[in-house]
């Protein structure tokens, strides 16, 4: 898709900054979530597609930049269809593998071949069903793009003993961000490799520290095996540490990588983004959300989701020569709507 530079209607000196904000409330979402979950159970899962759309609409619709909110337009039937196909394939997989375990290799091959298509398709489905104001997003990534970004770079990282892992990360970010457009205006980010390497080094240091923390309880109890209770205790302490690490560390690192990607991102020529997520704060939110959710048997799950969305929105802002809400762009040329429909008929949401 061609990038059409924005023609700024205002004088270049004027700069408008709009912060993102999330206006949903935990109480309101709790009722929506619980009623939809009950309906999902009563309908043996069929309603889950509708529940998903309502949930997404609630979060998108309450996320504002300036005067406009985002919105999610996917049809629940399309999501149900995607799930039905996925479930059908899973059943065929189990049946064929049960009959002849030798077919397993064939399935792996098939999976690798279709994975880029699944990624591309899901991203396009999500983008085309998302709007800001009355303008939709679009995704122009290709099959080969996904194959390169997700498989080739990952493979290369494995071959180079993970020394190129940050570059694989960058390839994924480029594929996902630089193929997106808002209306006919493209997103573009340029991530400095050096800064990404620095973040990954922090991650590596954290992993080493975490491994020591996980092994420590075993080391502290030399004859633990003789006493089941202290053995159970050290296993418990270790497992807890593992959960903390598995959950908090990705949140910590992804806060930094998200900042890096968004702070270097622009929409068209003139709109710049800023993201000031705090890594400790994100790790804390994710961890305390988990504790709150588990301790209340899931009752605080809606509160946890709202809390996370509210914090993330509060850290993101857009600056441009004019109010971003006033971007003039026509997405669908008159008469082009049918072609769009046909093209997206094969796009399904597989929940990737």
């Amino acid at each position, binding site marked *: 898709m061609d990038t059409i530079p924005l023609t700024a209607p205002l004088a270049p000196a004027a700069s408008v900054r709009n912060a993102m904000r999330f206006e949903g409330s935990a109480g309101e979402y709790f009722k929506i979530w*619980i009623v939809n979950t009950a309906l999902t159970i009563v309908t043996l899962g069929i309603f889950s597609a509708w529940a*998903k759309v309502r949930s997404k609409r609630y979060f998108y619709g309450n996320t504002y930049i300036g005067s406009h909110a985002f919105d999610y337009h996917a049809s629940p039937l399309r999501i149900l269809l995607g799930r039905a196909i996925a479930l059908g394939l899973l059943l065929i997989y189990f049946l064929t593998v049960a009959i002849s375990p030798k077919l397993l290799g064939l399935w792996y091959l098939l999976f690798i071949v279709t994975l880029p298509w699944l990624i591309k398709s899901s991203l396009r489905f999500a983008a085309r069903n998302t709007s800001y104001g*009355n303008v939709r997003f679009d995704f122009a990534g290709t099959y080969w793009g996904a194959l390169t970004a997700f498989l080739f770079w990952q493979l290369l990282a494995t071959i180079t003993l993970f020394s190129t892992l940050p570059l694989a990360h960058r390839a994924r970010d480029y594929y996902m961000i630089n193929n997106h457009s808002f209306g006919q205006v493209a997103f573009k980010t340029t991530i400095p490799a050096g800064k990404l390497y620095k973040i990954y080094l922090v991650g590596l240091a954290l992993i080493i520290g975490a491994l020591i923390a996980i092994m420590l309880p075993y080391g502290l109890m030399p004859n633990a095996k003789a006493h089941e209770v202290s053995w159970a205790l050290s296993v418990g302490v270790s497992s807890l540490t593992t959960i903390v690490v598995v959950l908090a560390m990705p949140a910590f690192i992804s806060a930094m990588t998200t900042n890096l990607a968004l702070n270097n991102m622009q929409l068209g020529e003139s709109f710049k983004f800023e993201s000031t997520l705090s890594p400790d704060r994100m790790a804390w939110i994710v961890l305390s959300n988990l504790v709150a959710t588990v301790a209340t048997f899931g009752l605080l799950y809606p509160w946890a989701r709202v809390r996370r969305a509210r914090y993330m929105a509060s850290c993101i802002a857009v600056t441009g020569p004019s109010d971003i809400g006033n971007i003039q762009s026509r997405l669908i040329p008159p008469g082009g709507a049918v072609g769009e429909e046909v093209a997206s008929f094969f796009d399904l949401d597989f929940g990737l």
Partner: protein
Amino acid sequence: MMQLIGLHFAPGSNHQAEASLRIAADGKSLEVLGSNGDLLASAPRRHVTITSRLGGLRRKLEFPDGAVFETADNDGVDALLKGYSGSLSRLERSWQLAVTSLLVIAAGAAWFIYYGVPLGARWMAAETPLSLSRMITNQTLLAMDGKILLPTTLPLKRQREIQDRFRTIAGWEDRGTGRYSLLLRSAPHIGPNAFALPDGRIVMTDQLALMVQNNIEIDGVLAHEMAHVNHAHGMQSVYQASLVPAAIAFITGDASQFAQLAVILPAVLLQSAYSRNFEQQADDDAASLLRQHGEDPGQMANFLERMELKSCGKTGCGPSWLGSHPATAIRAARLRRAPAP
């Protein structure tokens, strides 16, 4: 004439202007008027897509040409366009219904945990072809043999004696001797133990064989493991372990890492609860088989108590709700009072 106040968006654009919406004079069309009275959009009502009400979100009326009328006046939309209000939103706003939903979910979850998972796992285990469980057993043994399972060091005579007992007990079972086989292994790291693998192979460690004081005790252990094979408990626990997270992901629609981690603890506790049921079932089957053939299941109880004393001391092995087996005292008591068939 009732009309709603909101914003008009030009087709496919974020260009917006204050506008109002009303039902046209013909009673069938919807019209959007600008603040100066210009007609900005108009279409038959059935061609206008009206988003369903959701929380306090602004309502959107999407016209066929791509123009949108947006308003925060949810009640106004519901009143003006009866039949579009969406009963779902009414349900979502009531606290009484939220509480009812909570009860439905709790009942559904309880049913699923007590009946759904065991039933589903039992069915899937029964449908699993022998070739698959043989493959899984091969993989398991491959991973353990030479590492934590070493060749047996029992004298040949003792090995033959144990295999004889094994054949005798297997002969008592309905499925006959061909269904099971016994592997003797030395396992210094595992200690006294015996376990059944999915395809009917049963492993007994030398350490266990050295702890028994008479052959009736061995009979009890073997009958217990054969019961695990009969009920396909091995495959059942594989399926149980995957059913719980899959169901939670399906119902919450959230397959994220967060959701998966949130269910680890409940899943582990559930898994050991299911496992304790399996152990009890295997004990009951073994006791009834032994009694049928005039042997005393109480001997197995003696053996279990001796095992516990050795591995955990006099204080016992910690809380039973965490363990994969019921408390030894309970198992022993149940074995001793097992009713004659």
